[in-house]
């Protein structure tokens, strides 16, 4: 930027008569300072956009799990509202509402250009109030306090409960205690939670297993019927097996169901009575309470404990409350599984294609054309790949697979609908141009002399590629693959067509043969964001969750991108010295 320091001679301007003595100074306009500032402003705006975006997402994501204080406000109409203040904003009150206010308030509002401030309280207690959030305008507030004894209880259903504890009932015995740190409360709560866990285990794993076995038997019968007809011995054998085993399995089922019922019965005898800020009582079964704390009366370490326990719950458990609460383990799992499958598909094919284009095909007009096309396919909208995936993979390919291998399950589709396999293949197709382009670039960067040297030593073409070309191109290939992963992990639109669902009851990997179920639909972080943000009962309630999920997804993708760059740099350094 020091190039123009000594620039004292201006370009001769024809319109100036030669007789006039020209000054030696440069015309100030030649420096184009205002335009430079406009350009710089554009860059500043771009940087501000990305930095502001990231700061907002990460800030919102990180503070979501911080336990917030619960504030109780009394308004002019003597209503008391207790809740977490979520956000405060300026708004313009409707003129009809304004008219009803006192002149003093009206004046203060009109002084601030017609804006008034209001705060949104997360009041919880959905089962009592039928709302999660309540707006309170600042001018309505007469009293604000932070009651020490108020509790914030996260529940399995109906959202949080914000109330005080009145008493608890353990095994039908009422114990008068208002303290959640009371060992009796803690013990009863723990027992209830453990029982709930056991019930869930019974219902999901044990009974699930029995159902699976029954299904298998029924499918065997149908299989035998399709294979050898209704009157064959095969069919008869399968029928008898089904008949023989059914009572046994049903007995097992009954025993398990009974056990679950007993546990449930026991759990129903443990409950806690809460009183909300307006004095309404609400009894909640103890097993439904996930976590309870005193938001206005807790030490720093307790806060930190709650914060991390929420994080742990988030990454390690399943969602509840229509995905707006709980964890996102299935979505993390689904995203990881799909991305992994995609890499398994995309890496070999991408590399093989690039090898063909660069090492085998005759470099001519055709290959140039193919190269342009492949390059441009990277720019084809992802939704188009989704459409193709649905039409070709799921319906045509999957439909044929069902006809050939799973006729006994028809008309219920097995592979003939969206699923993990088809989603991965669709994304593989979507990202294959990325890998091809990156690999080609890497291959072309391998010096020709190395190839020639290898061939001159008598190595075959494949040996040259295997031992000379590929190792040197590996950094580039790795970068391409990781970039493809990053692209694939962030795509949502095509997945909406080929197998992503808002709630997948079964993970694609489980304990039943064949253990990996590629035909199953799955959850995905990106789709989770879309679903919770747009299709849940109350998008406001789900918003914090969406922010955390967003943070996780962006973090994941950035991590992959950074890894790609690091890997490239490291491998580059490794090979730096060894080039001819």
């Amino acid at each position, binding site marked *: 930027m020091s190039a123009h320091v000594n620039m004292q001679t201006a370009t001769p301007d024809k319109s100036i008569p030669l007789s006039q003595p020209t000054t030696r100074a440069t015309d100030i306009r030649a420096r184009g300072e205002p335009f430079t500032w406009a350009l710089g402003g554009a860059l*500043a705006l771009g940087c501000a956009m990305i930095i502001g975006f990231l700061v907002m997402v990460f800030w919102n994501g990180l503070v979501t799990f911080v336990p917030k204080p619960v504030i109780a406000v009394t308004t002019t109409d003597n209503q008391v509202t207790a809740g977490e203040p979520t956000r405060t904003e300026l708004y313009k009150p409707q003129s009809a509402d304004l008219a009803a206010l006192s002149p003093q308030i009206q004046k203060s509002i009109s002084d601030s250009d017609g804006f008034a401030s209001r705060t949104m309280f997360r009041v919880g207690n959905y089962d009592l109030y039928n709302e999660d959030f309540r707006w309170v305008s600042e001018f309505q507030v007469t009293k604000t306090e932070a009651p020490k004894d108020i509790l914030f209880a996260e529940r399995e259903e109906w959202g949080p409960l914000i109330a005080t504890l009145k008493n608890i009932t353990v095994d039908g015995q009422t114990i008068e205690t208002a303290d959640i740190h009371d060992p009796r409360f803690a013990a009863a709560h723990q027992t209830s939670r453990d029982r709930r866990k056991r019930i869930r285990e019974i219902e999901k794993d044990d009974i699930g297993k029995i159902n699976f076995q029954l299904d298998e038997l029924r499918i065997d019968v149908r299989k035998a019927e399709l294979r050898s007809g209704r009157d064959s011995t095969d069919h008869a054998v399968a029928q008898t097996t089904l008949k023989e085993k059914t009572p046994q399995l049903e007995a097992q089922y009954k025993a398990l169901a009974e056990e679950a019922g007993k546990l449930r019965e026991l759990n129903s005898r443990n409950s806690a009575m809460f009183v909300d800020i307006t004095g309404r009582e609400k009894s909640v079964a103890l097993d439904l309470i996930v976590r309870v704390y005193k938001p206005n009366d807790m030490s720093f370490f307790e806060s930190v404990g709650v914060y991390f326990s929420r994080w742990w719950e988030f990454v390690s458990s399943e969602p509840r409350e229509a995905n707006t609460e709980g964890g996102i383990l299935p979505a993390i799992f689904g995203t990881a599984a799909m991305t992994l499958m995609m890499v398994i598909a995309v890496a070999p094919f991408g590399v093989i294609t690039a090898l063909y284009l660069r090492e085998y095909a005759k470099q001519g007009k055709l290959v140039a054309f193919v190269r342009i*096309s492949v390059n441009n396919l990277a720019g*084809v909208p992802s939704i188009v790949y989704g459409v193709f995936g649905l039409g070709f993979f799921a319906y045509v390919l999957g439909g044929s697979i069902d006809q050939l291998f799973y006729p006994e399950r028809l008309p219920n589709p097995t592979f003939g609908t969206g699923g993990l396999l088809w989603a991965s293949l669709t994304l593989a197709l979507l990202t294959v141009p990325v890998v091809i382009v990156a690999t080609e670039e890497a291959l072309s960067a391998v010096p020709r002399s190395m190839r020639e040297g*290898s061939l001159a*030593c008598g190595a075959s073409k494949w*040996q040259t590629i295997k031992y000379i070309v590929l190792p040197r191109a590996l950094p580039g290939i790795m970068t391409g693959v990781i970039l493809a992963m990053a692209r694939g992990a*962030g795509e949502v639109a095509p997945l909406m067509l080929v197998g992503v669902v808002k709630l997948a009851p079964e993970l694609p990997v489980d304990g039943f043969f064949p253990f990996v179920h590629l035909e199953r639909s799955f959850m995905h972080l990106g789709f989770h964001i879309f679903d919770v943000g747009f299709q849940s009962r109350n998008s406001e309630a789900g918003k914090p969750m969406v922010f955390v999920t967003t943070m996780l997804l962006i973090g994941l993708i950035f991590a992959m991108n950074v890894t790609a760059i690091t890997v490239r740099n490291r491998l580059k350094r490794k090979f730096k010295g060894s080039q001819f």
Partner: protein
Amino acid sequence: MAPAQIGSGAVLFSTKMPQVPKRGFGVTTETSNPTSVLPRQRRSMKTPRSVLIADKVADGVIRVGGLAVILAVFGIMVFLAQVVVPLFTGGHLEGQTKVALQAGGHKTLTDFIDEYRTISVAVDDAGAVSAFHIKTGRAITVPSFDFGGQTATAFARTLAGGYVGFGFGDGTLRLGRMLLVVNIIESNSAPAGLQKLGATDDLTDGNAIYTSISATQYRRTLVKLELGEPQQITPGGEAIMALDYRVGGTAERPARSFITIDANGVGRITLAETKKNFMTNKETITLTTSELPGLKPGVVVSGVLMTEKADQVYIAEKSGTVYRYDTRNFDKPELAEAIDLAPGAVDINVLGFLIGEQSIVVGGSDGSVNIYYRLPRESATSTDGFTLVKAKTLEPHTAAVIAMDAGQRGKSFITADADGNVWARHLTSEQVLLRLKPGDAKPTYQTLALAPRQNAALAISADGTVYAWDFEVPHPETTLKTIFGKVWYEGYPEPTYTWQSSAGTDAFEPKLSLIPLIFGTIKATVYSLLFAIPIALGAAIFTSEFVHPKIRAVVKPTMELMASLPSVVLGFIAALVLAPIVETWIAAVMMAFFIIPLGLFLGAYLWQLLPYQFQLKYDGLPKFVAMVVTLLLCGVVAYVAGPSLEVIFFAGDFKAWTNGSIGSGTPFTALVLLPIVFIAVWVITGRISSARLSNLLRSKDRFGAGLADLGRWGITLVIAALISTAIAAALTFLGLDVRGGVVDTYVQRNTLVVAFAMGFAVIPIIYTIAEDALNTVPEHLRAASLGCGATPWQTATSVILPAAMSGVFAGIMVGMGRAVGETMIVVMAAGNTPLIEWNIFSGLRALSANIAVELPEAVRDSTLYRMLFLAALTLFVMTFVVNTLAELVRQKFRKRTAAL
């Protein structure tokens, strides 16, 4: 290479190769291999087989795999096209049969077909019912109606439900029902001794048809008849000449109504109320009748129609006049209008509704087939403000139209002419789907029937011959014209481009025009690029030409980071965070578009006033920081001054202002005009006083020149503001307002928000490619320009940018491709309303968003499914063309740069 010619070293090399990877990827030389120095070891001169095989296998795999991937990638386009093609291929005839019924000399009143094209049933005017198996012509025994020896003079049947009415010569009327009952029965409960019918899967016991649908189940189809008691309609016993019958209301309380025309030409509308006595379980029917006014005595009627709600009645006089009655007030029907629909010597032969009762088909004796809609019209002379409008003129028959029948599941219908031709047609696409011919004969049909699934037609001629056609028209509603042209849909006042793919009922006419979606895509793209291009290009030029490489090394990856943000995240933030903020602070946001450039310019002029040494010293990062600070300051100013500016420019309430309900457009028009006027004034003053200005600026010292420059800018700005205000006032005076076009009614999820969010996706792409292009301009050009005394600004605009132009252009094209295909942002933030308007404050529905929203619900191989594939193909082609252009331009650019 032949193995025999390979030297020992080469053989050694190749045989040892498999061990090399264990020691790493390094290139092995012979000295690093201890075995090679041992001369005693003897090796085969031949290349080992395994190496040759591996080479062959690898060769094959790579060739086949590579070609397969390339083919697969092109296969996408082929596959999409292959799914789309059936939309445009018409139907085909599957089979044609001709059966002779026993001719009893009676006139056939009606015939119809069941869902599965199994049985056809016909009734003649003596009440005799004949039914037969369509594929084989085998008759089955069915009961008949008992008319007590009378002959029906008029007949009517409802489109769905099988309700029939017969009018007789003595002025009586009998209501009844004729049903084809289909149920599934277990094969072991079927009667014994079923006979197989020809080569079909159908069996019969003589009374019903049994179709085998699985190993254990039959579908049984049989005919069921009901007939009520005669009801006297005409007081004097005049014969009923024409009849229409409708059953509305609910299943428990059906509202039966009918229209009768007697031999004297008197029209009556009758309401029949059925009451059931719970004790005796006997039904009693009470009739209420009103006479229709205005019909000429002795009128010859060729068609009578009534709506299901019994609020509209149409009576077509043979000579061409249609009388439309408004019967909403049942006791006092009103003649709304009498309109001649067949002028001249042409007669109306056929009058019929299509399903939904919105379209009226009028068939003339000249072969014409026209569609009329009842629409509200300002110019209507009728009593209710509506009038019959001829919406469509379909391809005419070559002979007089004599019959029609409407489909029950869609807007298909068939018409027959006097020569015996039967044409299957569709309302929306206006096309003749199939031209069915009866063979060599020229029969005169008495009745015509279209199967419920619109896949078979059946006609019975006067001599008792039945002609049946099986056909398949999978997508009758789509042609290129319906997809890309204006179509006059039912109930619409005029032809429009509309996308509305589905609704709950069969009577809904799907509106499948891609134009609103393509428009939505273009609108989103244009506004996004308007926002993204200046920022991306400005940032690229600045990064490449005006910042230190160290800053560039930080700034460029930061901008590129933006590209890796998943679009679902952008969409979420745009819709749930940004949209409410923008809505609240819309005035401030609008003002920011003007305040930021002004602020930056002002900052630049002030910077020029600083001591020159200072400017030089802090030219790098500090200056950039100053720019950032200026930018943020401008943001704060916009935020703080927003409400006050809203009062000045938008009459204090932005949303009400955009509606056009309050305030004047003048201030904002002036603001929009300001940049244009400013540039004009700037250029003109620059031209006029170029030399003087130049001298003035040069004659001063740096501070003075800076001050003069600032003064010039300020004065020009003031002059431009005055001129643009004057122009705006003049425009307002002329009645032109900035509102109503690009600025109109505000909705929360709008194009402005989409454009901003899309900026995150598009800016990094354009930025990276453009910056790369600018950066690859050879250094010697830059050096030469600077060496000749040009300033960096002059170098950038006059040397670097022209040289890199095609690369920059390619960047814009690629960015455009991304904007066209972006899905999640538009799904979430654009509101998804398929409008055709340029209003930046309204939503849009893009092709991509439409696919994402509708395809999961679309039934495989349905019309909607294929339409969405067409949308995908359109997107594919659009982006492929744009990207290929970009690539070609870029390659040209590369060649050019290489030559420099």
